[in-house]
């Protein structure tokens, strides 16, 4: 049988996802009409003999209970559980800490996914590659532009591009343009391997003079990182396989990156899931490209929606409204003739008539943060937190608005706190 672990992180690590993470933990934020986590669980559920999915993170236990109940209903053949880390153990440390639960039932393969990514998750292909060799771990990689390589874990492949010769996390100089995607498969042996790494580290510490035992060292010993401690070691022992995906993949680190991720998932769903995306029909509304409209949302027939738009539960879109490249969360009211472009409108937002909420398009993985005259860094996408009211005709441009604010006049390049 197969198992999967999804590393969901914790509330303190999702700060880059503010202000949206103030209301909802990032893994549950919807892209393509479903929580980020759901897409990963859906892909894992289709792996043959997948029996159990474990979420591992620092969030309080109740955070995922309702979501996991829903998953149990939707994917009845899989057992779901959440394991909470109480201290920061590192990505591999957490895994090792819960090794007994993970190893229980002797899974043949353990899938490991980070939650802050969106992808088509070609897990069958990854599994095929993993089972074809002798690797302890197999990593899914994606070819990226040379300039961006130093932001990722980089993998140097062998000639056949099946095994990793070398792995470096965020190298200072250019090493390879194959980046780790945060999707892995390990065999059970990974735990023995981590054990060996820990033992070796303990030996090192023994040899050191006593005065070297200060706080930093203690922490280094406790916290074990997959990227800097385990994968380089596997690669140098010729136990790290690789699979290069040609399909879509990108990180969802910042709130702004939810908009392009939403577009990627919607375009994929439009191809793969009949009826999931809205279709334009006689009598409107006009639909352009991939659009998701929740059944309880109401959209006026004279509105024009898309491409790359999700409209969530109980939202109301007025006459002559234009929305593109945007996520409209639950219970939002958008009044007549307003325009929402490159933006996220938070829960319960109210956008006035002829108002405009517009950010700059997000250029994929390019760095799009900009420094404004006031010295504030702003994500490219315009983000309104929960319960924001924008007065009639006001323009919110390239700005981030924290929850419960009223915007009554034009704002440009501002963070409203």
């Amino acid at each position, binding site marked *: 049988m197969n198992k999967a672990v999804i590393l969901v992180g914790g509330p303190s690590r999702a700060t880059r996802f503010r202000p949206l993470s103030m209301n909802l933990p990032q893994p549950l934020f919807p892209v393509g009409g479903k929580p980020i986590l759901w897409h990963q669980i859906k892909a894992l559920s289709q792996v043959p003999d997948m029996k159990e999915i474990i979420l591992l993170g620092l969030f309080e236990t109740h955070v995922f209970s309702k979501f996991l109940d829903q998953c149990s209903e939707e994917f009845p053949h899989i057992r779901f559980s959440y394991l909470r880390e109480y201290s920061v153990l590192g990505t591999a440390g957490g895994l090792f800490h819960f090794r007994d639960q993970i190893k229980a039932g002797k899974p043949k393969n353990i899938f490991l996914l980070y939650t802050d990514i969106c992808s088509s998750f070609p897990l069958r292909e990854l599994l095929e590659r993993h089972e074809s060799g002798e690797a302890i771990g197999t990593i899914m990689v994606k070819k990226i532009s040379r300039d961006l390589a130093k932001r990722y874990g980089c993998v140097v492949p062998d000639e056949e591009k099946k095994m990793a010769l070398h792995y470096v996390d965020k190298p200072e100089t250019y090493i390879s343009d194959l980046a780790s995607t945060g999707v892995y498969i390990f065999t059970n042996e990974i735990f023995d391997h981590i054990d060996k790494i820990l033992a070796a580290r303990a030996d090192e510490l023994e040899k050191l003079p006593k005065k070297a035992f200060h706080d930093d060292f203690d922490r280094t010993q406790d916290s074990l990182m997959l990227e800097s401690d385990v994968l380089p070691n596997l690669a140098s022992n010729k136990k790290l396989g690789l699979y290069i995906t040609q399909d879509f993949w990108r990180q969802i680190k910042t709130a702004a990156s939810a908009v392009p991720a939403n577009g990627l998932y919607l375009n994929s769903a439009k191809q793969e899931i009949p009826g999931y995306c809205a279709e334009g029909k006689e009598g409107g509304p006009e639909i352009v490209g991939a659009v998701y409209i929740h059944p309880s949302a109401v959209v006026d027939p*004279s509105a*024009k929606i898309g491409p790359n738009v999700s409209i969530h539960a109980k939202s109301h879109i007025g*006459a*002559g409204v*234009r929305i*593109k490249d945007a996520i409209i969360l639950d219970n939002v009211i958008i009044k*007549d*003739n307003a*325009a929402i*472009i490159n933006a996220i409108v938070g829960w319960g937002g109210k956008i006035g*008539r*002829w108002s*405009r909420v*517009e950010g700059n398009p997000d250029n994929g993985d390019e760095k799009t943060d900009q420094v404004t005259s006031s010295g504030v860094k702003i994500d490219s996408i315009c983000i309104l937190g929960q319960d924001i009211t924008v007065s009639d*005709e006001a*323009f919110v*441009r390239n700005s981030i608005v924290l929850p419960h604010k009223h915007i009554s006049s*034009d704002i*440009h390049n501002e963070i409203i706190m």
Partner: protein
Amino acid sequence: MVSVLKKYEEEYGITITFSVENEPLGTAGPLALAREVLGKDDSPFFVLNSDVTCEYPFNEMVEFHKAHGGEGTILATKVEEPSKYGVIVTKPNSTMIDRFVEKPVEFVGNRINAGIYIFNPAILDRIEVKPTSIEQEVFPAMARDNQLHKLDLEGFWMDIGQPKDFLTGTCLYLSYLAKKTPELLVSPSENYVHGGNVLIHPTAKIGFGCKIGPNVTIGPNVVVGDGVRLQRCVIMEGVHLKSHACVKNSIVGWHSSVGSWSRLDGVTVLGDDVHVADEVYVNGAFVLPHKSISSNIPEPKVVM
């Protein structure tokens, strides 16, 4: 320009003659150049700078001018800061102009030349066909000869040479119409009118669900789509504003178009035949004729 003004000849039963300078002759020289037209009989003639707007009290000017019997009358407007202008000083208890004080340091008066005059043809004897300033050269001489009087202009006055001032002048003029001849404006009870001061040519078409005003003029044959928002703007002849567009504080030139959900603001000026695509934001752009705008212009700039 000739073709535009031809229409007015018919509409108002007047003759319009063009006198064209081949070289710049200043503010007085052109009058000498047009001597044959202006001096063909003894009747006085008006001279106006075209870049000012006010209530144009022409009848009052004629009466006043005939009554004082001098060669010229200058319409004088009140300003808040006379130290920025040339101030008119009259003789005590008289309308006769004594002198002009350029940018006075001490307060000598608050009336300045409004750029609108009425003259007897005799003024033409004071001017030669060469570059001459009426303000600097001709007026001081006339004042010395006790031939120049001032008539105070009541109400608004605005130099509208700059787009920003043109919009302000439009607002002032519309407010004046609202007071004086409200029947020329669209009735504020019309459901799309917001805040009044809306002047729409009868041949213009207004879509459903628009909100227009205050301070908007819409020229002949303009087509305004559904759900369009207009405020403090001038829409010239033949313009097409597509549905759900929003235009504020802007001038849209002849036969231009503004796309659906596009937004103009910040004293944007579109020249003749400019086309703004759908969903574009244009802030403070000065767009030369025959251009197409297909992406946002968030900061003021000239598009040429």
